[in-house]
């Protein structure tokens, strides 16, 4: 009998343990679902963790209202097919005022439609633990974030004073109004995620695979024409290119890469030879155009 666990199975076992620990120790957990590939893996692990029972916590998507339309279709199908409670929240006030990346810049948009919306939603439902799909290999500051990451009453992270995290014994104790962000995929790398998706046949949004798409070159970033909210002068410059996305977010802020990888194998092959990290294709800066608008916003909000 061979008792050697493959790296994917070892990562899976660790993530499942983390997910179960949260379900056992917190009274109101929620899984933040971003519709991306990491979220798809995290949700898959949660289903495994409680099989044959149902996952004992809801999914929550913070909708910035500027996501790729294919993402929203995928999200609704996913929740329905899995009979999983899905909470969708957005910043109503900012939405009604027309906040968006083209008019307000990425900074304001992110702050209001993503960060503020998330904090408000967590508070609204009184969630004491929120799962996120972040990985430590994504950026340097994350390399030291704990798997169980403490947030104070203002929901802030204090990197200077993190709780030591030893063995697989997680400190889940919090005071009133405090919460924990939990990152079950902390030790996964981008390539692990794709290998696992391939192995477990996990469905992901088709935008990850190369196809002919209408894109506009904005300062060297290839932006998909996803709807008519893109300014007309930009839309008119659209050309058909064979592209795919390494990360998914708000369509005006997420650049595509030219690629012919239309299978997971192709993606992995591209990744092994890639020199850029996946983050470099995310968040395009529209802020220069929006500085006037930004000032108005700051006074207003």
């Amino acid at each position: 009998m061979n008792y050697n666990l493959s790296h994917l199975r070892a990562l899976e076992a660790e993530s499942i343990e983390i997910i179960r620990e949260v379900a056992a120790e917190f009274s109101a957990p929620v899984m933040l679902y971003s519709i991306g590939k990491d979220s798809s893996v995290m949700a898959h692990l949660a289903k495994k963790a409680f099989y044959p029972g149902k996952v004992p916590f809801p999914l929550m998507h913070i909708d910035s209202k500027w996501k790729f339309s294919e993402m929203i279709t995928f999200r609704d199908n996913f929740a329905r097919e899995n009979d999983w409670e899905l909470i969708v929240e957005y910043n109503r006030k900012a939405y009604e005022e027309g906040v968006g990346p083209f008019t307000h810049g990425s900074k304001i948009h992110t702050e209001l439609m993503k960060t503020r919306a998330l904090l408000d939603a967590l508070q609204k439902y009184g969630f004491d633990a929120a799962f996120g799909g972040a990985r430590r290999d994504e950026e340097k500051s994350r390399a030291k974030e704990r798997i169980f990451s403490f947030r104070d009453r203002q929901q802030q992270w204090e990197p200077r004073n993190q709780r030591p995290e030893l063995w697989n014994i997680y400190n889940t104790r919090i005071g009133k109004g405090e919460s924990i962000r939990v990152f079950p995929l902390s030790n996964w790398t981008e390539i692990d995620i794709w290998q696992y998706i391939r192995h477990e046949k996990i469905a992901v949004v088709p935008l990850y695979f190369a196809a002919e798409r209408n894109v506009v070159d904005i300062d060297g970033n290839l932006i998909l024409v996803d709807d008519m909210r893109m300014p007309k002068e930009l839309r008119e410059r659209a050309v058909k290119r064979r592209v795919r996305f390494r990360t998914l977010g708000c369509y005006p802020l997420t650049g595509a890469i030219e690629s012919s990888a239309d299978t997971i194998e192709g993606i992995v092959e591209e990744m092994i030879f890639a020199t850029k990290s996946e983050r470099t294709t995310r968040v395009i800066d529209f802020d220069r155009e929006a500085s006037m608008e930004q000032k108005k916003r700051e006074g207003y909000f």
Partner: protein
Amino acid sequence: MIKDFLAQDERKDMLRLLTAGSVDDGKSTLIGRLLFDSKRLYEDQLQALYRDSRQGCSGEADYALLCDGLKAEREQGITIDVAYRYFATSRRKFIIADTPGHEQYTRNMVTGGSTADLAIILVDVRQGITLQTRRHSHLIDMLGIKHIILAINKMDSIGYRKEPFNNIASAYRCWASAQGFSFSTLNIIPISALCGDNVINRSDNMAWYSGPTLLELLESTPLSSASGLSPFRMPVQYIIRPNQDFRGFAGRVASGTLSVGDSVTVLPSGKSSRVAQIFTGSTLCHHAFAPQSVTIVLEDQIDISRGDMIVRSDQQQPAVGQRLSALMVWMDEVPLEAERLYYLKQGTTTVRATVKSIDYLLDINSGGKSHCNTLSLNQIAGVELLCSAPLVCDSYSDNRHTGAFIIIDPMSNYTSAAGIILGVQATDTAIDNQSVIKISLSQNGFSAEDIELLNHFCRVVESRCGITINCTE
């Protein structure tokens, strides 16, 4: 072709390692080397091409990126504690727990080393064995890390000569064996992280060295979890009960193996049954083994809850008791307060615990013991603990999972200490009826309104473990 590559690549296993040493020893350069060169190697394997082995000190610019990251952290004033970094070859995925050598070394090394299978201790060949080398070795041994690589670095700076290396190697072997360390493997290699000698590629500059390169060692070290020899232990983490007909006990296998049909005992109750089904995820399996996360279904309906431990009846049983002797590493700026009630979390159990006595302070530089009255940040002491309920555990030297615990401050909820169980006194219902533990309510985060709740807690403790606690204003 890519499909074959991926199919093979998926089968690789995972090793966690700790790097001990300071920036002066070339640690950042070594990590940079491993991260960048292994990626290059990975590409090469995919292309099935061979590059020339890299000679001379080229490519330093690549590693600057990594070092800059660390510098930036320092400038931002963020405490540099444990950072996790990842790399892979076609044989293994590696997780590096990178901890700084100087400041807060004990807390950080204990944190990073708690999950490590292997430790690399870096030594500057021009410095030889230092106080830091000895300190790191003691901590690594205390944490039960069984595989040690002593990497003697900066060989390029002494013209790759054999004698200085041999002198340091034999001095270390001699010292380590005198300490009585329980390392399973100790490998000593001459490297130059800067120039890449013996890190990933074999060095032509040291023809006198015929042993493996650092990466070869990392790829071939056996994983401790892969052994089926330890007794089976699974702390029950969660009960899965979708309907009346299914009751599954979910948890992570801490050690050993279990098969369908095996007789199991549930502790601390001592009730037994047989294994009816084992699930890993949604798949029915015949066996479970560490470190899998599984769900176990038993043949009989017995009362089991989170915090219980499932063990195999035919194997050595863990200890069950309320009095522990342990090594405790203090991690909190706020020092230990004797007779204060802390939370103690071990496996999936959380109990209240108090330090009855501090037996000795451990000098991590020498392994020597001295007397002390309190315990503060980065100190290690041998202590006696009294818990509010029996713990099911093993000694840490027998089991790194069931023999470990953390101490949580009830007021700040901070993780105040890491604990290593040395021994357990069997539960004796007559324990300490005479002893009076005075606990300040305000110091433990309680207010006067909590008295009623506390009295309820005292009665629960009394009924479960026979300790009478009286609570008065």
